[in-house]
């Protein structure tokens, strides 16, 4: 086919089509939160004293970290799916959640005697955490990756990994209201590991699904 012919065909196909990438991501996120909420209430549910615990800084920190991760990863992914878009501050913004966690850890190390550090790090619920955060994050990861296919990421694996961070953050935020372990040391170990699994899976899937 001649290039001029191809141009003719493409111009005939000028009618606006499909969803804007942001809009499809917004829909996917709404679906993801709904899916995790339903799964969470069916399988785990919030812990009994969840509302009362909102006065407890370590409990609140779990949500600041996970939701901060979700917000900053969304900001980054919206840049990654636009070819040539400047990533700007969003790469550094991704450090917000780890930064908050580090502040929490510093507070924990000051207030908890060093003999108990290992105990609070291991916690009581690590296996549940490593099971349910990745498990509940699978549907969000799938939905987000599908939505990102309407974008054009020039770095598909990285974009998939950031999609995994969003999915992991959403899942972990719900899980946090169930888990009795509030120590930032616990969060930094098990939550991070669980979310990293989803990021790794996202990178693998992204490399296949997000090419264009």
């Amino acid at each position, binding site marked *: 086919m001649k290039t001029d012919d191809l*141009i003719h*065909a493409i111009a005939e196909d000028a009618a606006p089509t499909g969803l804007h990438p942001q809009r499809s991501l917004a829909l996917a996120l709404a679906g993801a939160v709904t899916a995790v909420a339903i799964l969470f209430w069916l399988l785990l549910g919030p812990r009994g004293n969840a509302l009362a615990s909102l006065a407890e800084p370590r409990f609140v920190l779990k949500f600041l970290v996970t939701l901060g991760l979700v917000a900053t990863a969304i900001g980054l992914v919206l840049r990654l799916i*636009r070819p040539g878009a400047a990533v700007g501050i969003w790469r550094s913004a991704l450090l917000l959640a780890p930064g908050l966690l580090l502040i929490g850890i510093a507070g924990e190390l000051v207030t908890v005697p060093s003999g108990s550090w290992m105990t609070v790090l291991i916690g009581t619920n690590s296996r549940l955490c490593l099971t349910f955060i990745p498990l509940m994050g699978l549907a969000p990861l799938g939905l987000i990756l599908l939505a990102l296919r309407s974008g*054009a990421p020039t770095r598909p694996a990285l974009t998939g990994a950031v999609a995994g961070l969003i999915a992991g953050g959403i899942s972990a935020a719900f899980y946090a209201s169930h888990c009795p372990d509030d120590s930032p040391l616990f969060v930094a170990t098990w939550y991070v590991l669980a979310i990293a699994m989803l990021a790794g899976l996202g990178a693998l899937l992204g490399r296949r699904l997000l090419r264009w």
Partner: protein
Amino acid sequence: MQGVSDREAEWAALMRAALGGDRAAYRDLLVALTPVLRAAARQGCLRFGLGVAEAEDVVQETLLALHLKRQTWDSSQPIGPWLRAIARNKLVDALRRRGRRGTEVDIDAFSEVLAAPVPEDSGIRRDVAKHLQALAPGQRSVVQAIAVDGASIREAAQRLTMTEGAVRVALHRGLATLALRLRSSET
């Protein structure tokens, strides 16, 4: 002579109109972009050891990608970085598919192009033509009527006794399938 930013501002204006469904503006934009894409593709192909002939495949793949991903341009932003990122991505794809690591430079091809510049309207390209044959019959007849025979949507609809809506859908799917085939082919 126009400056680069004037030129890109003009492209951006055309693309804004095209995103609103203005076919004439869209055609003007594609016609204006093609020689620039072609020059860049040739330069890239020569630099990394592909022949000038391959460059036209890259141009066609880039045009298809621009088309199918046009919604990813943020119309409040300059269009240049977006265009360059897509063109580079398609060049890298083509090099990777043909097993180039980006280290070899084919000196023969280089002197060849210096000696005999290829005419502006390069001829029939194998890749797209080959994959056109592999499209589903419905999509193929529509793409063929419009691309190869130069029909408009309305003419194609009359000729193929289809509704204009069905022609539109078949054309869009056909172009998307072509892009997918090109991307996953191992030529």
